[in-house]
């Protein structure tokens, strides 16, 4: 019983969406509207799913004093500070998103530096990988590296100064060969989506229920 009902729900809801795509007439149009609205509300709750396991895991780590529990304390404190700041801002401004609220202040001076620096690290890793790992070991990798060099130089102002046609060559590579290959891959991927969606709809693929 615990498996049949969910599979039936999945089949019926996707059928509603597909049928109302083709038949705009009375019952289906409104059915699609309602189910899309309900989907949005339920999807809103899924944003909360990760929070519990995170707090649970780290509070366990603190309780049992496992190695690195100090960092878990920092994590929980950071979490608490944001929740408190958000609640206070909510009461003062009606929303946490007001430009002068403490919540936005913390966003500007804590989340922006942390997240943007985390990804800025990648530029260093790319540089060291370019030096130590990217080798033209076969014709494919050679072709890749040559195109990469042309595009990297062509797309930036220095390319234009080396040879004024460089940017146009880089643009040609992007718009013709690169586009054609990406279109081929895109067609393959969307056929894949159709296949996976069909399998889920008909209950052949059930891993999402595990």
């Amino acid at each position, binding site marked *: 019983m615990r498996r049949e009902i969910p599979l039936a729900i999945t089949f019926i809801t996707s059928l509603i969406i597909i049928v109302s795509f083709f038949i705009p007439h009375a019952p289906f149009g409104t059915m699609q*509207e309602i189910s*899309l*609205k309900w*989907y*949005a*509300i339920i*999807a*809103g709750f899924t*944003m909360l799913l990760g929070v519990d396991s995170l707090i649970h895991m780290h509070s366990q780590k603190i309780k049992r004093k496992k190695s690195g529990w100090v960092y878990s304390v920092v994590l929980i404190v950071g979490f608490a500070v944001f929740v408190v700041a958000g609640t206070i801002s909510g009461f003062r*401004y*009606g*929303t946490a*998103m*007001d*430009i002068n609220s403490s919540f*936005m202040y913390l*966003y*500007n001076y804590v*989340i*922006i530096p942390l*997240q*943007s620096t*985390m*990804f800025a690290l990648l*530029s*260093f890793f*790319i*540089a*060291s990988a*370019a*030096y*130590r*790992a*990217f*080798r*033209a*070991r076969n014709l494919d990798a050679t072709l890749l*590296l040559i195109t*990469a*060099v042309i595009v*990297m*130089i062509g*797309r*930036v*102002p*220095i*390319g*234009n*100064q080396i040879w*004024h046609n460089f*940017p146009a060559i880089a*643009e040609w590579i*992007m*718009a013709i060969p*690169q*586009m054609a290959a*990406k*279109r081929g891959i*895109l067609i393959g991927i969307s056929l894949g989506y159709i296949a996976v969606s069909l399998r889920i709809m008909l209950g052949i693929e059930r891993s999402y229920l595990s």
Partner: protein
Amino acid sequence: MNIFERIEKIDRRIIFLLVAIAVLLPLIFKVRMEIPISEPVKKAFVSVDTLSSGTYILISVDYDPASMPELQPMYKTLLMQCFEKGLKPVMIVQWPLGLPLSIKAMSEMAVEYNRIASKEGKDTVVYGVDYCNIGYRPGGVAQIVGIGKEIRDYFESDYKGTPLDSLPMMKDIHNYDNFALLFCLEAGSMGEMYVQYANARFGIKIIFGMTAVSAPDAYPYLQSGQIIGLLGGLQGAAEYETLMKKPGFATMGMTAQSWVHVLIVLFILLGNIGYFIGRKKRRS
């Protein structure tokens, strides 16, 4: 160990230092370079520039601090263009971490434009009359399709909670038909969702402002006419700033970008020279 084997074994931190210096010097000495304009950016600029005053534009802010350096300059330049041409930009946000960025830049550009406008005697822009930000709602694709019928089904109020009907500019605005253009600022795959559903089902014209990582994947949509303009990465932002004759962060950053690219190309060449010499020695 010959010279190349030693070079290949260089410590990673020296490479990191070289990259940091290559970025810092051009920024400090403000070396300025001429920005060549590419076709997709020109098409995007012309599409916005030829709109008559009073036309509504939907700007979708779908990025977070991780892609702020590339997309925030595009967003700011686009807002300045809208204010100058008297267009009516409406901001919508699909990435939770992007909402504060959309709010911050919106108020900064409004203040800056009003400072210039009041000096030149033009009328200033007011929130809720000339521009507004309807914030975020969950649902992703379902919401994109949902607002195709009526925007208020999902966005009853703006990002601060003010009801949409009390914003003067939103009175006759119901769905995509009331917008001449949808300008998507994308760090991820939400742009493809707009193309697959908003453009395919409701026919709204779309322009992409994308991070450099995703820009190459958007060219098939440009060729098939699903989007009518494409800005790619910091270079795209710099080109748009140049077309608007308002050089900002992107234009300034392109010199550093050029130097680091040259540095990385050298790294690739050096690494491969060492590799081929090593391979020839091992074979002989």
